[in-house]
């Protein structure tokens, strides 16, 4: 694998984080049936206010069946590359270094914002902090709905 330049690495990681923030929160709001598609099949850990949730399907189930309407607003977010040579587990086993590209990285994302539960703009704004770890989507399927990155771990906490 050729050594990726800093600018390429920064672009890939910040684009991935931006895409997550721009698509995940709208999905929690208006596209809850798609929530499961944001997660890898066997995530490391998913936590909401200290409650462990098994996987993306369970998150989706909770949002579809139990959550009231909610409006999320990300007010600040940032990301860092955790591993520049993330060992993506594909169907054929872990990718050998020779096949790796600049996109084989894991990314730490931190988001700060607020959520308003319930209908209407007058509900109180609850501040939240959320940490994600993103990893490359190992699936080889193609199509415009295919996600480049999947959530490996997630921790949501109301903080205000």
């Amino acid at each position, binding site marked *: 694998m050729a050594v990726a330049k*800093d*600018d390429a690495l*920064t*672009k890939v990681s*910040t684009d991935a*984080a*931006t895409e997550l*923030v721009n698509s995940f929160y709208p999905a929690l709001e208006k596209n809850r049936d798609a929530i499961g598609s944001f997660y890898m099949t066997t995530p*490391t*850990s998913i*936590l*909401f*206010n*200290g*409650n*462990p*949730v*098994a996987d993306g399907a*369970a998150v989706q*189930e*909770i949002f579809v069946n*139990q*959550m*009231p309407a*909610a409006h999320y607003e*990300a*007010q*600040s*977010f*940032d*990301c*860092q590359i*955790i*591993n*520049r*040579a*993330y*060992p993506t587990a594909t169907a054929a086993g*872990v990718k050998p270094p020779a096949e790796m590209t600049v996109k084989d990285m*894991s990314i*730490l994302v*931190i988001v*700060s*914002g*607020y959520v308003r*539960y319930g209908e209407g703009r007058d509900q*109180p704004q*609850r*501040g939240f*902090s959320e*940490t994600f*770890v993103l*990893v490359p989507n190992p699936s080889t399927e193609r199509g415009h709905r295919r996600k480049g990155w999947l959530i490996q*771990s997630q*921790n*949501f*906490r*109301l*903080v*205000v």
Partner: protein
Amino acid sequence: MKTMKSRRSGGTSGGGIRKRGPTRTDRDGDMDMDRPGVRGGKRGRGDTGRSSASGRPQARERNLDLLQKAVSGGKDSQANIRQGKGSGGSNLEQFSVRNWKDSKAASNRDGGVESLTAFLERRLNASTKSGPRAKITKSRVEGDTLVVFVKPELAERMIRLNDNLFAGVHITIEPYDGTSALDRDLATSNGTSAATADTKSKMTAILGKRYYPDTKLLDLSKLVTDEGLQAMGIFNSTSTESKFFPALMKVWEMQFTSSTQRREAVESVSLADNQLANITVVTTLAQTVPDLKNLDLTNNNFKDPSSMSGWRWKFRNLEFLDLSGNPISAVPTFKDTMLKWYPKLRILNNVEVRTAEEIAAQKKTPIPVQAPYFHDESQIAENFIRAFFVSYDNNRAELIKGVYDNESTFSMNVNTQAPKAQQIETAGWDAYIKRSRNLLKISHLPARMSRIYTGAEKILELWNDLPQTRHPDMATQADDYLIECHQMPGLPDPTGQSPTGVGGLIIMVHGKFEESVGGKVETRSFDRTFIIGPGGGIGGIRVVSDILCLRAYGGNEAWSPESQAIPQAIHPAAAPPAAAAAAAAPAPVSTPPVAQLGLPAGYGSPAPGKTDTQVQQEQLVAHMSAKSGMTLQFSEMALSGNGWNPEAAWKNFEELKAQGTLPADAFLPTA
């Protein structure tokens, strides 16, 4: 609430902050024409602020700002200087004449003003025999000051009259700086001059009479009829009148050494019977007592919500509001508007508009708030976090040397818009904003690259530029932290040996810290996530990633578990890592995704016939059950079998669980 009303001082006759003493109108007739910038022409008192949707509040804000500057800054107030110069309009010079109130002429019917004016004119003419007769063009009284207006060519002669003997006293004559003596006293109420100290002590005395510590009521009703305030001449001029309330609040605040003490001193305020048409004059109340619960505004003149809109986002804890005797109460949308404005409002005009249950329901979140999820490995995260903030506050270089290496990354972002715990002003983010890597705002690649810091050296360089901080002590102020942790696979292997990466820990910390901003201690909140992995640092670890988010202080209420207070009773919500680690549950496979503790009513709470030991034991059992997923019976067995030592009980539980010797019915059914 009853107390509040009955405490209100007696008498019903009107009078208010905006109302003047009876002699007032005569005296300042010419005044109004003279200072158009300061005061509108013939506008009625009550109107001064109401017509002001756009222009005036700004001017007022500015004045307030300047006043505040003056109040905090000391003697030389810019506000006064600006206000004085250039506001005259006509080409007249203004002088203040003082001390005459002690003269024999003061017993004259008009207080001696006429004879003083005549005296000054005589003196002005005494020094010259030719030319037109010198004249005091205009004059007005402000408290103990006579402000006189003369043509510029007379200015020099005027100033020479300083210290002249008038009716037995030496009068003081100075160029008028736009404020009366009272103004200055108000504006510099923390200054040191005798007059200032006097004003301050008078106000303190007035406040003392109006404060009821037992009910935490500050009764500011019927201010205009307050003899103490009348004696001070507060209502004799518009300028003192408008500055009086902010100054009174300032004096009030000065009685407290800490903002917590100040916030806790008052729960109720009455501003009843003050003929307020809007909140313009009293708006600073919201800064002085932001946590107010009860506000009595009865018998004022609020017409509609717009007259109070400045308090739309204030008083977030207001539970009781009384606007009876105001036209606003008849506005059809009144109740809805107030409910919307004040989320905790329960009683409006003495009618219950929200139940306690409805209020409590607001706090509930769709996903119940649980105690922190802290799954450490050999206390690595615990030891790291315990040492981290102490070192970050005291020796950042040492910290960097200890656990950061050339591949460690650090970046920070500031959420300048974050919701706050209290409606208070927060200090700016100047020291941080240049480094903030909020990707919502920092969109250009070069900036994104330059705002991330890789390697110990660069990180330290940045940290040395950031303000000094003080984080709360984790052992004694555990509540201020929420710390969660779990394992994280796939980290880079610093030795390069493992192509599948190495395992480590991710630690998420929410908390607060103090920082000195311009000599003032500012409290801020932060969210900070670390990824640590095996490495060459202290304890065989290294920091892979350190990402920090800063925001306005948001309190710690949000993470106190809402399901049951019981686990808290033993280990506070933000359990110190030691406690959390000791109690760290195994992977909670048996816990349903969104779980609530099912406890019998009253379990773990004191009750008649229950000993303290029992209550304590029940709490331990409840905690054990919550952490282990075992039933109360089995949790109790585990604890009693281990001499009620929770750590020993936990160890025992883990062993038994690992051996698979615990029966299925030892565990709570999964939902």
